[in-house]
């Protein structure tokens, strides 16, 4: 276990979000993002949930996303004590089942789109997030995206921690390679996405001093203070057609 530093910033989580935000641009000119904490309290272990939907003005699918950068609110932290790590190689070769259960960082999914001739194919996909090995003290998140039908797709990408400008606390960035599906079809893009990061109720047994002990992961820790107007975050989506889209979703402050 162990591996990642305790109290590391939540940035990693945001990375996941990036993945979610992926699509957009061409026909999809508006990206609607909602974020919230569960439980919705200050300074406690929590889950960060993100949903993203592209609202298209036309019938064509959005341009494929090639890069995502996410900035998380200041004060959001990751307590990875007790968490393991998985490698991109393992995830690529064996899929999620090859990663240690305690390296799980989150879950997600959504609907992808592919244009074939005059037909737009909508396809559900899932995302599995894992903690990757740290690099020079910086977190890394692995994302395993999978779609089964009608077109099988598997993709593993790594989100790296990047410096975050104020008022954000941490940033993650991930580059997404072109996703080809079937001959004659467009590259895959995203129509909607959702993800949840954190581990408020996750527990594993591990041997401590020769004794089997139940260890609860703390996962993500919500900020202790909420700025007026809510927690700021930012997502920058870069598309294959050279355009980009920036969204600034706000996580509402806890009530009461």
């Amino acid at each position: 276990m162990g591996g990642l530093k305790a109290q590391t910033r939540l940035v990693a989580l945001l990375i996941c979000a990036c993945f979610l935000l992926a699509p957009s641009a061409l026909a999809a000119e508006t990206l609607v993002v909602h974020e919230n904490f569960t439980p919705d309290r200050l300074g406690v272990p929590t889950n960060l949930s993100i949903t993203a939907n592209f609202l298209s003005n036309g019938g064509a699918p959005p341009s494929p996303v090639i890069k995502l950068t996410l900035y998380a609110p200041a004060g959001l932290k990751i307590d990875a004590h007790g968490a393991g790590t998985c490698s991109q190689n393992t995830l690529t070769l064996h899929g999620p089942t090859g990663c240690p259960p305690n390296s799980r960082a989150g879950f997600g999914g959504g609907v992808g789109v592919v244009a074939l001739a005059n037909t737009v194919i909508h396809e559900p996909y899932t995302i599995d997030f894992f903690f990757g090995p740290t690099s020079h003290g910086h977190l890394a998140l692995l994302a395993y995206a999978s779609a089964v039908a009608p077109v099988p797709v598997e993709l593993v990408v790594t989100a790296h921690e990047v410096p975050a400008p104020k008022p954000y606390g941490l940033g993650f960035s991930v580059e997404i390679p072109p996703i080809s599906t079937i001959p004659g079809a467009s590259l895959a893009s995203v129509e909607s996405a959702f993800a949840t990061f954190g581990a408020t109720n996750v527990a594993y047994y591990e041997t401590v001093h020769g004794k089997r002990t139940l260890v609860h992961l703390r996962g993500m820790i919500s900020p202790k203070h909420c700025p007026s107007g809510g927690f700021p975050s930012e997502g920058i989506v870069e598309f294959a057609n050279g355009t980009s889209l920036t969204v600034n979703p706000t996580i509402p402050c806890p009530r009461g």
Partner: protein
Amino acid sequence: MQRTSTPRSTAHRALSLSTLVRRAFTLSALLAFTLCLTSPLGASASPGTQASGTATIAPSLLPNRLGAMGSLRLTVNFGEGPSSGAPLPVRRAVLRFPAGLGIEIPHLRSCSIARLRSRGPSGCSAESELGTGHALAEAMAGSQLITENISLWLFLGPFHNLEPTFEILARGVTPFDEQVVLTGTVVPDHPPYGEDLVLSVPPIPTVPLEPDASMASMSLTVGTNKSPHPNQANTVVVPPSCPAGGFPFAAEITYADGSSGNAFAHATCPGR
């Protein structure tokens, strides 16, 4: 319901569902709980069991004797889910039990839901515990079908409008440290059934934005046949007579997607 006649000195504690003031319930109720946990429904015939669809249910009485006091173990296995790989979660279950099946409860004690939730099984009196068991829960999260071993405890709940209630605490530890409490009420039925157990099954949460979990299989043992002090233990009472064809069981299940299903089964009559 059926009045359970017992030769024990604690006969006055014997519970029968048919009594006007129901101080006890038929064992059916307990079984019902079991079923409620699970999704699909299958009826079963005694040791073996056949069920509709891919579900199976297997009741077993120990000792297997008419009028005997002991335990009833009910094992339910559910097949593959329609598409996700996990069984559909159950939201409501009406379980029908054979007339005459009863529970002997020497010391009538109940446990409140609030107490059960906050303090767990150890927070309730031993006299209120009617059974234990285990289950396997499944949920799709990300691309994976996540499974979790669940421990079950069955308790007698407070009477509501003079009707007995039941509670089942289902607790899993890893990978998700979660617990839910199922509750049920008993209503009279028509022959060949004795009583119905009506269960409301709450959602079993996993993580935000991901589907709720559902039970894939479970086994619940009600009563005991191993107590060193049988007269002081909660036991299941086998009906004194068995109808031709065996003891009838049935269930009406309503799933989370709004669909419903029925199952019927007969448990073979015990030997004399």
